């Protein structure tokens, strides 16, 4: 038995090469692929990997943001900045009908809101532009039902995910053939962990929204979660007042559904140090997952990422 020490960089190198391989396969095999860009840290890493995969050429496909209209203001500003810097072909998909109806996280339950503003908007965007493959940043470590997710995840007509129809994955060889009405979701970060994502952001100097870093922000406490009051649409309860507390976010989504954590980590090194001692999974801060053990699975079957 020899002593073997593996540097973290070597693990990241291998994960990076795997992701690039998946990107190239997707770009070549599908007629009209799209990168789903949701502005957060995983999307930032995805975008960086896409730049690496096709250099010296640019991205050979557009990026699409599914906008629920309830994202943090700063996320939208960050998105527009990155799009301008990189010259991306950005498509935005909004469920306009639901916006007109006034669907919000406060008017509908989180599950129904997510279905209408995220799942339906995603499906509509994919259909409108005729995308046959959508690349996303889902990781297998996020949630237990994700452990069985494929890298190339098949969707039946109507975007349905059927666990029993998923294709077996051998070696580096993917079956990217589609029959009528089928489409593919592709997950280049499948084998990454949350810490890998942070370590990679640090190593590569990847730009991310500052919401990930601690700063005094106006928050209220709802059902044990710290929610940031990001704009005037937030309905404060009788006598309720936003307090300034030093918080950061582990995942970014719709601001009324994103729980903040109290923290003073205002730089990457401190943040990663906090991460390494954290023992709570990141989705714990996401209010949409908390409804029943298999709620993620139920959402996926409907076409959610």
């Amino acid at each position, binding site marked *: 038995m020899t002593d073997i020490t593996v540097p973290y960089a070597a693990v*990241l190198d*291998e994960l990076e090469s*795997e992701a690039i*391989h998946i990107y190239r396969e997707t770009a070549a095999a599908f007629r009209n692929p799209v990168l789903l860009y949701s502005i957060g840290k995983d999307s930032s890493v995805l975008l960086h990997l896409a730049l690496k995969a096709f250099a010296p050429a640019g991205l050979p496909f557009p990026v699409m943001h599914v906008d629920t209209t309830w994202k943090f203001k700063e996320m939208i500003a960050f998105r527009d900045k990155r799009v301008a810097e990189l010259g991306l072909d950005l498509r935005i998909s909004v469920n306009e009908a639901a916006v007109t109806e006034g669907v919000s996280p406060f008017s509908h339950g989180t599950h129904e809101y997510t279905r209408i503003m995220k799942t339906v908007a995603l499906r509509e965007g994919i259909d409108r532009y005729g995308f046959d493959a959508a690349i996303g940043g889902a990781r297998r470590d996020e949630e237990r039902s994700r452990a069985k997710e494929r890298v190339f995840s098949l969707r039946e007509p109507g975007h349905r995910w059927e666990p029993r129809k998923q294709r077996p994955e051998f070696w580096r060889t993917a079956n990217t053939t589609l029959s009528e009405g089928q489409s593919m979701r592709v997950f280049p970060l499948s084998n990454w962990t949350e810490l890998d994502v942070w370590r990679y952001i640090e190593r590569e100097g990847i730009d991310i929204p500052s919401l990930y870093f601690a700063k005094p922000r106006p928050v209220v406490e709802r059902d044990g979660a710290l929610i940031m009051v990001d704009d005037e649409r937030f309905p404060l309860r009788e006598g309720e007042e936003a307090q300034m507390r030093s918080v950061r976010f582990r995942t970014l989504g719709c601001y009324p559904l994103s729980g903040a954590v109290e923290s003073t980590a205002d730089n990457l090194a401190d943040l990663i140090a906090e991460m390494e001692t954290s023992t709570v*999974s990141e989705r714990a801060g996401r209010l949409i997952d908390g409804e029943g053990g298999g709620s993620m699975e139920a959402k996926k079957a409907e076409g959610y990422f």
Partner: protein
Amino acid sequence: MSATGTTTGTPVLHLVTCGSVDDGKSTLIGRLLAETNSVPLDQLEYARRTRRGGSTIPIGDVDFSLLTDGLEAEREQGITIDVAYRHMNLPNGRRVLIADAPGHEQYTRNMAVAASNGDVAVLLVDAARGVRPQTHRHLTVCALMGVKTVIIAVNKMDLVDYAEPVFNEIVSVVEATAARLGVPDVRAIPMSAGAGDNVTAPTAHMHWYSGPSLLGALSGWEPVEDNSAKPFRFPVQFIVRADGNFRGYAGTVVSGEVSKGDEVVVADSGRTAVIDRIVTYGGDLQTAVTGQAVTLTLDHEVDVTRGDLIAATGPTLVQPADRFSADLVWLAEEPLAHGRSYLLVSGSRSVPATVTNVRYRLDVVSGHEHSARLLDMNDVGRVEIATDRPIPMDPYSTSRDTGGFLLVDRVTADTVAAGLTRHAMRRAFNVVPHTYDVDHDARVLMMGHPGKVVWLTGLPGSGKSSIADAAVRRLHALGVHTYVLDGDNVRAGLNKDLGFTPEDRAENVRRVAEVSKLMLDSGLVVFVALVSPYRSDRLSAKALFEPGEFLEVYIDTSVDVCAERDPKGLYAKAAAGSLPNMTGMGQVYEEPEHPDLVLHGVGDIEATVTQLTAVILGE
């Protein structure tokens, strides 16, 4: 790998875990994950307070098996039905990606998936119950899929009082099988996943064992074979074009290494070139090693397309061939059909291929070879494969990436088999088509019209033969040279060895299609009147021809009308139960999705024929 990193050892170890449900596999993986801090606290908490029906673990203790549960349906059934992927961080920094394969017999195919990337297999054996058929099955599949290190984990040693003879007995049986299968690296560890013996730390319960715990074995593991020392192989995934006439070939080095200035060969065409640049986002590299995703440019213009293999020159070069001997793991519910055309997908390469022969089916428990004509789901067998064009395939034993392939159904797009190339067949190199001066074009000039194949498909009794007969009379009078290949007539001679099972029907269609291709080449307008009930068979037939040469004509006559006509008395026999394979009765007829023409088998046949001949003559 980026420009900045160099790798020593194997940073990511692909582990496959196998064993029966009752061997305690979920508990073993759960404990490994928990004791390496690879699960978040809230998931551990969940495993403390949740209990499955029948569980005897007290609330408050961690039920490790719950940590590896996945889908809701499985939680309800209390079993694992698919491959699950998890990660584990070892104290020395090594990442372990665990592919967890289920233990049920019917899921041998999932076992093959999990083992396909495996460096190391942990094979669980229940000490109390001993070696079972399942153990041999999993070991065989691991060996077949190229797993080089097998760790025999003799689990539940606490139930046999940690007795050494029990351990030795099990290990000797498994080792004998491993030796027969040629597994190069076999170790054995006595353990108890439930009690925590030898999982992540050595135990005091078995002084007779001095080896490492499972965690220690995984930390110290080194590969038996070094892929980077093998010949250079680079399947081209994507052509990168950029400003200034940049043309690069993007892909991953799957074995060996390549440096700027090396001479390489495009194995598909045999053309050689010299590596000009090794391009990455972070800057050019001098050398790219196994596992690195890079973009290569060549010193001069060579024809390279996606799917081509760039390889080292010299004696290790693989020659393109169009016939291969291969092992298949059959994955689909529908069995393998001889003569049916599938897509062979290997890396980024995709080529139509046919299984021409099944040599034998392998009994994965005993290792015996049984003669077989087909392969069913979960079967493993040796076959011969013919591809539509020559491709360079390495033996699987040399390279998983360039020797492994998938077979994909051309209609459903499902992956139906995983294939492991054994060797190219010599006779493929010896068949060299001869080109004759008097060719199809010359014959078309003499005939005065081009050849065509008019493929009439439909139920028995739908009117295919009658329509063919009337159309040929009409064309003959116009001076068109015709011939009819009628299903029943062909079965009296050329195809008299074939029956009516789906695989025999596929072969029937294949032969008729090949004959009609020869006749077309001779300049004839060929009518095929054949039930040909399966979409994929007709698709295979059509694939032999150039666009415009092949007309798929669907004779759309309802089964009621056909049964009433019953010109050959077939429907009466089927109704009496003496024709189980009768199309439209015992077997399904798959209507064409995009026929070139639909004709109705009822009504004025002369009008129908006018419609048909107009299309044939291009009027």
